[in-house]
């Protein structure tokens, strides 16, 4: 989950360069989420297979046992082998399970997600998912020797042993599974805070605006977007701290409304920093001597 104020940990962040040449950041899906998505998909596959068996039993006497049997064999094979491929092809790299958990398959290089990549990542499911599954459920006698068990164990554990959480299918398809980001466009603080005639009175000198940097500005943005029960107290503490630090005095010696002060300061500070950024001087934080 990503919203405007809590950035995801950089360990999970990857960047892709889109065909337009712009770098975008994506967040890798967690192993737990992917596991849950697979379980949901497997449950759906199970439900479809059950439905097929029910239909076959229902039409058994009508169309003859052999036709019913062959129908069942081909249909179950089709569902099991092509469920993931079908949805990832039709739903742009998602399946019902992935969709519920807001996950998506994308091309690692940032290009178009092509059908061949979808084939590749889902063909590997046979050895990564269905064979281990049938071993657990106690079938497949030919796979029971130690070497195959070991090998399949390695494949299943693969997502735990690489930074990108790739499973075998992702490796040979060149894909990532990422989260769908969520962020709302919030009102610009520079204009939304309660207007107050004091705004006109609250003025800053260039010296007062040259103390803080981008980091402090964006921290202030975060503080001002809070609306918890303690937010008023936090704001007034922050307002007092800033006033002390930059040596700002209320013109008429009266204490000003903290929100109004912070808003005015934010707007002025951002204007000042952005102007400097345009001239190539980006002051990262208050320790930046630049």
């Amino acid at each position: 989950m990503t919203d405007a104020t809590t950035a995801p940990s950089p360990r999970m962040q990857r960047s892709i360069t889109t065909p337009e040449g712009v770098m975008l950041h994506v967040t890798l899906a967690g192993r737990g989420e992917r596991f849950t998505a697979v379980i949901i998909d497997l449950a759906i596959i199970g439900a479809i297979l059950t439905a097929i068996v029910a239909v076959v039993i229902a039409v058994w006497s009508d169309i003859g046992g052999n036709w019913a049997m062959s129908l069942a064999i081909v249909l179950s094979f089709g569902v099991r082998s092509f469920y993931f491929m079908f949805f990832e092809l039709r739903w742009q790299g998602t399946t019902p399970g992935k969709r519920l958990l807001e996950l998506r398959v994308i091309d690692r290089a940032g290009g178009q997600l092509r059908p061949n990549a979808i084939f590749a990542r889902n063909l590997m499911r046979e050895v990564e998912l269905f064979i281990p599954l049938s071993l657990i459920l106690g079938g497949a006698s030919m796979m029971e020797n130690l070497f195959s068990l070991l090998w399949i164990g390695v494949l299943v554990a693969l997502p735990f042993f690489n930074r990108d959480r790739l499973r075998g299918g992702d490796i040979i398809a060149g894909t990532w599974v990422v989260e769908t980001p969520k962020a709302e466009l919030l009102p610009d603080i520079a204009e939304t805070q309660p207007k107050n005639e004091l705004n006109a009175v609250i003025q800053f000198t260039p010296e007062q605006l040259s103390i803080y940097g981008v980091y402090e500005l964006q921290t202030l943005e975060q503080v001002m977007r809070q609306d918890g029960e303690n937010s008023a107290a936090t704001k007034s503490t922050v307002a007092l701290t800033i006033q002390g630090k930059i040596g700002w005095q209320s013109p008429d010696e009266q204490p000003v409304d903290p929100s109004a002060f912070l808003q005015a300061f934010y707007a002025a500070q951002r204007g000042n920093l952005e102007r400097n950024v345009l001239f190539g001087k980006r002051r990262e934080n208050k320790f930046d001597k630049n």
Partner: protein
Amino acid sequence: MPDLNLRSYDFRREREKSWRELDDLVKRIRRSGLSKLSASELRRLPELYRSTVSSLSVARSISLDRNVIAYLESLSVRAYFCVYGGREGLLAGIQRFILQDFPSAVRAARWHMAAAFSVLFLGCLTGFLLTLGNADWFYSFVSDGMAGSRTPTAETSVLRDVLYKSDDTAVDRLNAFASFLFTHNTRIGLLSFALGFALGVPTILLIFINGLSLGAFSALYASRDLSVELWAWLLIHGTTELLALVLCGGAGLVLGAAMAFPDKYSRMHSLAVKGRMAAVIAIGSIGLFFVAALLEGFARQLITDITLRYLIGGIALTGWLAYFIMCGKGRYTNDD
């Protein structure tokens, strides 16, 4: 309202409308898919996407409003999913696959195919020679379930009957048989592709073992002077089926080779490029397995004439070879 004189603020006010429009479009696509959009909306999507991506670039360089940048980044990523998430029509995709992607991928991997075929041939030869020398080998190469009544101790007449049995093969039983064959063989084929991930070793073993049992059978029948009949029985569908097995095995070897001998970039890069190409071959071979199962389940049981059996097998092989050699001639365009 104070005179803000903020460039980033004006910038946002100018562009915000088109961001919102893209946001709505993306939300609708998420709910009901690309196909529900009207033609004009479909045209609008990439335009809006590009302008938003360029907004993001501008915002990164002029704006210090963290929320705006985070929002634009998220919107761009979500729109990127829609624009580059793959959206070829299913029919157009299948057509392209059959006419272009599949045969050119097979051509690109022709040496791997040759290697897979050699392994199959070697397995067959080994199985044949060993079993011919000592019939006991037959039991090591062919599992009991597969052999059924066809063992070295069986009467020659029993062995011959298997090739022509027609008493209980009423047509309505055949389709169940054919569908079983199809799913079984396809699983083996796809498995031999996926196992290529282990440097190709299990793939080679799997093909070799298949060759061994084939060789053991032909030795058994050769010892009773039934070779010509057996191969007629095998090749009517076998040219297609063995070809499909070779394709899957070759695809597995492509994967194994990419793992063992990475290209000039990196192992991950070479696996991704070669893996996608090999997967195309493996998917395409499902079609061959399907044809083979039809031939095996229906044609073989209904046609008992030896010449006709050879003829059908030969025509199938010629057809496949012509398809792979000629169809969609040109560069392999799949790995972008």
